[in-house]
């Protein structure tokens, strides 16, 4: 029986007997939502997660977190258009985090230090073998992730070396070959069996592969350019951009021309345009049906060029004609003397689908002596037969499975995706997960996380800070070999990583702990199961929601109290 004290004095802290948690109808919880950079990354990287390690100065741990999704950071840090940066919440505040520069820094650091890829153990004896067709980014990625799952990848590549498009179509000014070779070699050295000069349909067939492997992953890439003509006309001697780029990379030569029109709005178009300009063309025009990035252009209508490449191309004098197409080629005899452009837009039609519509009366003439088509590529059907769809691509489901064939998976450019290295890496990772799950008789477990928007952040707790960007070679000093964009140093990388809002993750800033009126947020010495250093004491939390509204990074969410 409780007994009175003289004058009704109380023991210190005896209020702990009063469990005010019963007042609560909303319960705070740590919710590791997907940062926009993560949601946007086709490769499935979670940049805010590894940026945290960079900020702590632990580059190796950052790299290990990074390569859990993408084994090629030195490469993607250079060539990826980085949709993560375009979606970065910090872009709405001052300037997006320069994720690519940090990714590249980590990739280069790993090359220099020779850090081992984490999570790779030799496959057990008798582990299932999986055949991979194509050693481009998708093929390398699937092989790497299969290894992580304890499976045995066997890669068949038609070319003499691994790399695919990275080697054949990306200029050295964007991706030095030393970096490409070093990173590919390190990934392959993890235990990937590679058979080069082995072409599907020539040296082996799908059926042969299927007989010897538990599953197949097809990543043949798009080796064949899309058919191109202007109103039925194909000027004599026309060579497409991919073809020109390959021979420039192989032998360093391009056709001589004064005025060049490149038709297309992708990276190959921009790459060849810049090569032509550097090799003496007075004018290089890039004609694209897409629009320039900006508020006027719908996201699905923006030209597919890495933003910094676009910027550099403009610096170098490439003239871009957006929202236009070629309506006529002006010939004098067989010789091109110009092209006729017409304005067009992507518009919604009566049936609801969007299509490009040219506007009569907007025609104009550009003088030109060379037209380079760059409107895209498609799959070489050799050995694939009916798998190639009418669109020119393979059709796969969300996990890379080819319809109607349970052991057949595909990825990369051959599936007609957005055509980036990161997307190919992502295709490989997802397919490896699916293959491993199927072989283990399980469902692939990739829990989708909700993306966190800027409205969930509390920007009061951040200060504008200038972005750190690597130096870029001046236009006059650019040549065919030197990498145009430079590297960041460790200090700059730390500074830039420090600008990360850590969207959806814990900054360990103490706000929840400092601002809880009920002392119901406890700071603990160990790491909690959710990775943070705080736990909620639900015996006392009244559910006011102050912690959630004052969490800078949206890591705390209020959810209805369970019944």
């Amino acid at each position, binding site marked *: 029986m*409780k007994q009175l*004290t003289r004058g*009704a004095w*109380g*023991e*210190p*802290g*005896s*209020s*702990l*007997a*009063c*469990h*005010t948690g019963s*007042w609560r109808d909303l319960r705070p919880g740590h919710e590791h939502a997907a940062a926009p950079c993560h949601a946007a990354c086709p490769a499935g990287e979670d940049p805010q997660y590894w940026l*945290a390690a960079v*900020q*702590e100065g632990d580059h190796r741990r950052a790299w290990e977190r990074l390569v859990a999704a993408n084994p090629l950071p030195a490469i993607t840090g250079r060539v990826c258009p980085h949709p993560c940066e375009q979606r970065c919440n910090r872009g709405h505040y001052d300037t997006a985090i320069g994720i690519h520069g940090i990714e590249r820094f980590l990739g280069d650091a790993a090359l220099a230090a020779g850090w081992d890829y984490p999570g790779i153990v030799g496959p057990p004896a008798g582990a299932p073998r999986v055949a991979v067709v194509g050693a481009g980014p998708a093929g390398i990625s699937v092989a790497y992730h299969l290894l992580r799952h304890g499976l045995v990848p066997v890669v068949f590549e038609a070319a003499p070396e691994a790399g695919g498009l990275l080697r054949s179509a990306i200029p050295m000014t964007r991706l030095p070959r030393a970096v490409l070779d070093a990173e590919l070699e390190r990934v392959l050295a993890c235990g990937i069996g590679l058979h080069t000069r082995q072409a599907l349909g020539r040296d082996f067939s799908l059926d042969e592969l299927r007989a010897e492997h538990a599953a197949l992953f097809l990543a043949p890439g798009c080796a064949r350019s899309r058919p191109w003509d202007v109103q039925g006309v194909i000027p004599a001697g026309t060579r497409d951009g991919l073809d020109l780029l390959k021979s420039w990379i192989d032998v360093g030569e391009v056709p001589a021309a004064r005025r060049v029109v490149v038709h297309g709005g992708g990276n190959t178009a921009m790459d060849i345009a810049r090569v032509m300009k550097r090799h003496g063309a007075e004018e290089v025009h890039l004609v694209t049906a897409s629009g320039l990035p900006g508020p006027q252009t719908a996201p699905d209508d923006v030209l597919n060029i890495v933003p910094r490449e676009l910027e550099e191309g403009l610096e170098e004098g490439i003239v871009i004609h957006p929202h236009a197409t070629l309506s006529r080629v002006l010939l004098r005899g067989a010789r091109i003397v110009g092209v006729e452009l017409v304005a067009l837009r992507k518009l919604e039609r009566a049936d609801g689908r969007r299509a490009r519509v040219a506007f009569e009366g907007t025609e104009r003439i550009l003088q030109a002596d060379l037209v380079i088509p760059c409107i895209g590529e498609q799959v070489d059907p050799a050995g694939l037969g009916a798998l190639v769809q009418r669109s020119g691509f393979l059709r796969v489901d969300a996990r890379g499975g080819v319809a109607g064939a349970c052991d057949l998976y595909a990825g990369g450019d051959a599936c007609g995706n957005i055509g980036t290295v990161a997307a190919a890496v992502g295709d490989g990772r997802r397919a490896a997960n699916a293959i491993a799950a199927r072989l283990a008789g399980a469902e692939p477990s990739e829990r989708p996380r909700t993306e966190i928007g800027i409205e969930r952040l509390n920007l*009061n*707790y*951040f*200060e*504008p800070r200038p972005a750190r960007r690597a130096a870029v070679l001046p236009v006059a000093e650019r040549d065919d070999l030197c990498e145009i964009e430079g590297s960041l140093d460790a200090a700059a990388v730390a500074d830039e990583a*420090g600008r990360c809002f*850590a969207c959806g993750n814990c*900054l*360990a*800033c*103490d*706000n929840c702990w*400092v*601002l*809880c*009126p*009920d*002392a*119901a947020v*406890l*700071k*603990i*010495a160990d790491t909690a199961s959710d990775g943070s250093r705080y*736990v909620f*004491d639900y*015996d*006392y939390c*009244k*559910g*006011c*929601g*102050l912690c*959630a*509204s*004052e969490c*800078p990074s949206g890591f705390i969410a*209020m959810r209805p109290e369970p019944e």
Partner: protein
Amino acid sequence: MDESPRQLIARQREAEPRYRGLESGHRACQGCGEALAARLVTEVAGGDVVVANATGCLEVFTTPWPQSAWRMPWMHSLFENAAAIASDIEAALRHQQRPTKVLAFGGDGGTFDIGFQALSGMLEREHDVLYVCYDNEAYMNTGIQRSSSTPHAAMTTTSPPGRERMGKRHLKKDLLSIIGAHHIPYAASASVAYPRDLQRKVRRALEISGPTFLLVHSPCPLGWGHGGERTIEVGRLAVQTGLFPLVEIERGAVTAVMPLRVPRPVSEYLALQGRFRHLFADEPRAREELEHLQALADHNIAVYGLLGGAPDALDADGADTVRRGGAVA
């Protein structure tokens, strides 16, 4: 034997890397600014103190017998005598030659109004006491009646808007200047929205031998009519508009202010609170009072020189900046 989840969290509570003067289990409303302020103050004051607490919400929600939320020696006597009680605790400790610090806690009613005389006496007699006024701008414990701290035009149950009136007719008493006029070594205003600034001021005050005073703006979700999750947002805007300037006064002279990088319009602050809802009616009187409050904020900005120059880590935008692993400032 394995530790139960409740044992684990109790152990984590005990192992926390800070002193908890105000323990969990108190019965303050959800999102209570005063509870937060008292927690922040006692946290830096530490355990070697004695607290004299005036009657009011803080006293009631922390000490329904037999449960006390306080971990330091604490005493409540009456509404108007916290300063006097603190005076004599201090005198007694001085006589006993004990170095223990004395704090007095009161709300705005117990400080601006009924306890003002005792407070003035305490300051004049130079007792070594830190008096903390948790200013929530009305008599909240009795059900939201206006006090001399209630801001102009605010609605309370004794200053309701109606056909003839637009909330409180009079102005918020400039208590800090009056306190400063006692020529005490240190007086300052602070806000729960800027906890580090608040705690720095508590530390500063406790280092000083002699009477010190802290006025802590403590939003009251119930009395001000805002969600408990907005306590900090409301408090921050009070500072950033200039309506509640954060200043430090030594021997009667203003020696430091928290500058405003870009003053926010008062309407942003007022619109968050039910007590100012009538000011957003579509009528001339409402517009006039909005302008009046803006003018009062502008006046504070001018009088205290709140307009900062270049962005500053300690201005009203920079002072709450955090980064991975803690606060910046």
